[in-house]
């Protein structure tokens, strides 16, 4: 062919490579003019095709439902999931109502392949409790299949709304299990079993749906081409540990046993065993590592057998689960029939044989704390930030708090949520959602830490405040004052814990504030007082000279800023009292009176009033004014109860016990002490559920000794408290001393010797050898040994005590003289023998 073909022919070739005769095709391929013409025409045709598809596609990509699936009329949308959309439909020929599932929208080749496998597998299964497939096909490129239409609820809705009894729930579960067992026998593993994939019809019959992620055991499909290595299919909350951590090769029928176990758990407990909030990595960590709580923890109706069945089904190690769905179903049947089950109570839930009652603050309280915190923070930002960032940050804070609160809703975490749990959640949420806003993160950590400290939980406050400091430090200069505020709070929390690190932290705060603020600023006074508190809270090497000077300056600062009735000045006075020697008792009394009246003149309840009342009571007690002391303690305990509930009760009982002892009523003092120790044990039992029963039993034995002759188990109780506190605090040792004193007075020596040895050890570690309280303990021990006629053993203790007083240059003090007297008595006693 010599002449070039006309345009029609080129266009025809672009549409169909086989168009035209051979000669024309050969010419076009060879001709320098025609080949580019064809190429252009081909590109035009391709673009036109693409534009045609775009022009016809509806704007909403998921609305691309083929309007007509041959033979069916589509009606409303029923469900939408990752693997397609389900419409109710009617088969035109039979007028039969059915459901049509189709793979809508923009889909990848892998998704299409998976959908085809679902159709194939679903067609293979015929079971009354598995949804049956009628028909399938491809319409306008969209694969679809028609199946039985189940009028009913999803299993989770049914469980919530049907009001079914435990027996009815278990019977329904048995039917679901039988259907799954059938699928397994036909070589199909479901892999995405969850309540949303199980429908319950009006007659209470279940139907399992959605084999969209199913796995064909025999054909080993989906092949790697369909499921990429490590790709996880299914819903996270219902995934088995091996689905979350493995490469997919470990998935077998036991994976479905796990999911079925979760379905059982949720049916009987009303919730999942793990918290499924937070980031994906959090959930994965929990599901793969944390052991599950027994379902009876959430539903009192359940017993140990059901706990054992559910927990065996959801064992993390597939080898320890029921090895088949039938085995699980059989145990549920045996349970219903009242015959023995195969699962054995094992692992962690044995320790839960006695129901644990945890002290829970209702969600409302937690919510309130956080809302207040959030509002304050919002306000803080409005105040501190430049205008442009202001609204953005305030909104960020609000949304994080909202997230925390919605994640902590009762539906998600059980009927009531412990304050602590909400806070833990808050901590995580801050890490997650505010990674890019360290200033907001710092402010929120600071609020949480401050709230913990205000709730008298300084130990928990410290890590939050440390993180807040890190954030502000990383932000540099403009945030120095925030950094100082943070350091101040961290230092106070550390002081509460008698931690020496409080001192350098407060020094940082004071240095920053002195540098950044005018010298009479009230925050400088605050930092001076805080540094003094840090100094006075130490066990060893208390620099009371420096503390005294700082408190003096702080008091002047507060007075100049807010006058004589300033509560901050009042608090400063309470600390000044601590620095005064006994000889200045009158000045102590005056300062305490001033402080107390300042607190009382403020309109609201200042928590520091409790401190003032207690200090004033102790002073009155030391002056022999027992009635006044009792009256002040009564007021203190009223206020403490109003502000903190039971949190301070132990401390107050101890104060009453000391008062009784000072009045000479050792017997009442001893009784109260026992009550206080018992309370403390019970308080710990709610924080350590795994030790709860032991601690509560111990508390009971303390309060009601078995026989009148039996001594209460003091030593055991203190050993337990010491272990719980992580090796015992100074306060604990003081407490032991107090009890030892009452017991010496009551001549009930046998109980106290181990107690004193314990106290001695704690003192040595906390405060070194020269601590006066330790010397007092040594004397008590010597006195006790002496009284028992064991002067030989008492001798070294008393000698050490006397030698220490001499070394400290205090050999003429009343305490030293008393110790020397005891030593003499002891020497006489041992020479008698």
């Amino acid at each position, binding site marked *: 062919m010599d002449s070039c073909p006309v345009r029609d022919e080129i266009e025809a070739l672009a549409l169909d490579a086989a168009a035209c005769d051979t000669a024309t095709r050969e010419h076009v391929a060879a001709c320098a003019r025609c080949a580019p013409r064809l190429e252009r025409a081909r590109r035009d045709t391709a673009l036109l095709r693409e534009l045609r598809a775009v022009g016809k596609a509806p704007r909403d990509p998921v609305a691309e439902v083929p309007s007509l699936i041959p033979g069916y009329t589509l009606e409303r949308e029923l469900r939408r*999931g990752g693997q397609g959309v389900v419409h109710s439909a009617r088969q035109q020929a039979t007028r039969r109502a059915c459901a049509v599932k189709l793979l809508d929208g923009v889909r990848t080749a892998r998704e299409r392949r998976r959908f085809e496998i679902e159709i194939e597998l679903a067609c293979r299964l015929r079971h009354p409790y598995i949804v049956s497939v009628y028909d399938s096909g491809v319409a306008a490129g969209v694969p679809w299949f028609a199946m039985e239409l189940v009028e009913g609820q999803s299993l989770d809705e049914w469980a919530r709304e049907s009001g079914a009894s435990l027996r009815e729930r278990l019977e329904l579960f048995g039917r679901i299990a039988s259907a799954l067992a059938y699928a397994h026998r036909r070589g199909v593993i479901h892999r995405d079993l969850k309540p949303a994939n199980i429908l319950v019809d009006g007659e209470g019959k279940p139907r399992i749906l959605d084999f969209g992620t199913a796995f064909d055991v025999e054909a080993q499909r989906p092949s790697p081409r369909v499921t990429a290595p490590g790709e996880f299919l299914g819903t996270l909350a219902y995934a088995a540990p091996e689905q979350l951590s493995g490469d997919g090769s470990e998935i077998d029928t036991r994976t479905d046993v796990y999911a079925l176990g979760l379905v059982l758990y949720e049916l009987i407990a009303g919730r999942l065993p793990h918290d*499924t909030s937070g980031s994906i990595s959090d959930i994965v960590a929990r599901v793969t590592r944390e052991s599950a709580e027994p379902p009876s923890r959430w539903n009192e109706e359940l017993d140990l057998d059901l706990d054992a069945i559910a927990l065996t089904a959801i064992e993390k190690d597939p080898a320890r689960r029921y090895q088949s769905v039938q085995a699980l179903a059989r145990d549920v049947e045996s349970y219903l029939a009242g015959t023995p089950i195969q699962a054995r109570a094992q692992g962690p839930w044995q320790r839960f044989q006695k129901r644990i009652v945890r002290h829970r603050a209702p969600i409302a309280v937690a919510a309130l704390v956080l809302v207040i915190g959030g509002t304050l923070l919002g306000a803080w930002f409005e105040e501190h930030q430049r205008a442009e960032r202001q609204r953005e940050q305030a909104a960020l804070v609000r949304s994080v708090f909202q997230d925390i609160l919605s994640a902590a809703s009762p539906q998600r975490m059980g009927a009531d949520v412990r304050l602590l749990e909400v806070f833990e959640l808050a901590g995580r949420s801050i890490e997650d959602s505010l990674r890019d806003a360290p200033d907001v993160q710092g402010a929120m950590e600071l609020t949480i830490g401050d709230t913990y400290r205000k709730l008298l939980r300084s130990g928990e406050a410290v890590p939050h405040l440390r993180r807040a400091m890190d954030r502000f430090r990383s932000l540099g200069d403009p945030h120095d004052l925030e950094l100082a505020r943070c350091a101040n709070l961290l230092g106070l929390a550390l002081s509460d814990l008698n931690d020496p690190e409080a001192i350098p932290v407060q020094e940082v705060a004071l240095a920053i504030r002195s540098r950044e603020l005018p010298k009479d600023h009230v925050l400088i006074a605050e930092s001076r007082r805080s540094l003094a508190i840090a100094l006075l809270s130490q066990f060893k090497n208390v620099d009371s000279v420096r503390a005294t000077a700082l408190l003096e300056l702080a008091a002047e600062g507060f007075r100049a800023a807010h006058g004589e009735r300033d509560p901050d000045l009042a608090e400063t006075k309470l600390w000044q009292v601590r620095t005064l020697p006994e000889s200045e008792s009158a000045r102590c009394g005056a300062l305490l009176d001033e402080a107390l009246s300042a607190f009382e003149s403020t309109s609201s309840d200042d928590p520091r009033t409790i401190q003032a009342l207690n200090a004033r009571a102790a002073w009155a007690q030391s002056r022999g004014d027992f009635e006044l002391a009792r009256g002040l303690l009564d007021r203190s305990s009223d206020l403490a109860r109003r502000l903190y509930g039971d949190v301070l009760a132990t401390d107050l009982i101890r104060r009453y016990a000391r008062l009784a002892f000072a009045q000479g009523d050792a017997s009442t003092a001893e009784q109260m002490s026992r009550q206080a120790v018992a309370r403390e044990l019970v308080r710990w039992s709610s924080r350590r559920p795994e030790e709860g029963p032991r601690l509560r039993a111990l508390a009971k034995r303390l309060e009601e000794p078995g026989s009148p002759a039996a001594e209460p188990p003091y030593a055991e109780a203190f050993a337990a408290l010491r272990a719980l506190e992580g090796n015992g605090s100074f306060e604990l040792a003081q407490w032991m001393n107090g009890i030892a004193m009452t017991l010496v007075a009551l001549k009930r020596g046998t109980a106290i010797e181990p107690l004193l040895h314990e106290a001695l050890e704690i003192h040595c570690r906390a405060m070194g050898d020269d601590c006066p309280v330790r010397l007092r303990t040594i004397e008590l021990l010597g006195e006790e040994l002496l009284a028992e006629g064991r002067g030989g053993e008492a001798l070294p203790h008393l000698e050490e005590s006397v030698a220490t007083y001499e070394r400290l240059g205090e050999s003429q003090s009343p305490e030293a003289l008393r110790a020397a007297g005891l030593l003499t008595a002891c020497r006489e006693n041992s020479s008698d023998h």
Partner: protein
Amino acid sequence: MDTTRKTLLQRVRDNADHEAWEQFFALYAPLLEGYARVMGLSPSDAEDVRDECLALITRRMPSFEYERAKGSFKAWLYRLVRGKVVDLLRRPATVQAPTETLLAIEDRENALDERWEALWRREHLRHALDVARKSESAGSIEVFELLLIDDLSVPEVCARTGLDSRQVYKAKARILKRVREVLLRLGVEA
């Protein structure tokens, strides 16, 4: 300045270029909403995602460094919309969001997913088609619609309109050329 030589992304750096912003919204609003829908959000949630993204974009575009970030507007927009979709999917109310979706978007490598690529192309084509439809003559458009929407062949169009095939080819070529121009300026291959 000659607006036709500037890309849409360059033009919207000027807040006062209303026409550019209009085009920008017409193009990206359906894209953002569509992606949210494809990822399994309800129509109202998808609208929320779209609006939040657009609000942010209008604040950021005037300072968007297009030259330096050439070609990465697509990735930037993807990260933005993906983040908003994840936020919504993570809400407790939608706790049973398909894990596959969640994991796909948590992918550390930030690889654009296939759906985004497909939607991106589709919405850009749609936009180019709309622009071409508005800028060409009514006659050309009529021919083109017959070819495009009614799926007619060239002889059929000739029969229907009374034009000869040369005129039909010419109308088709003009529209396609215009479409290609628009796509070129949006950085989309055609």
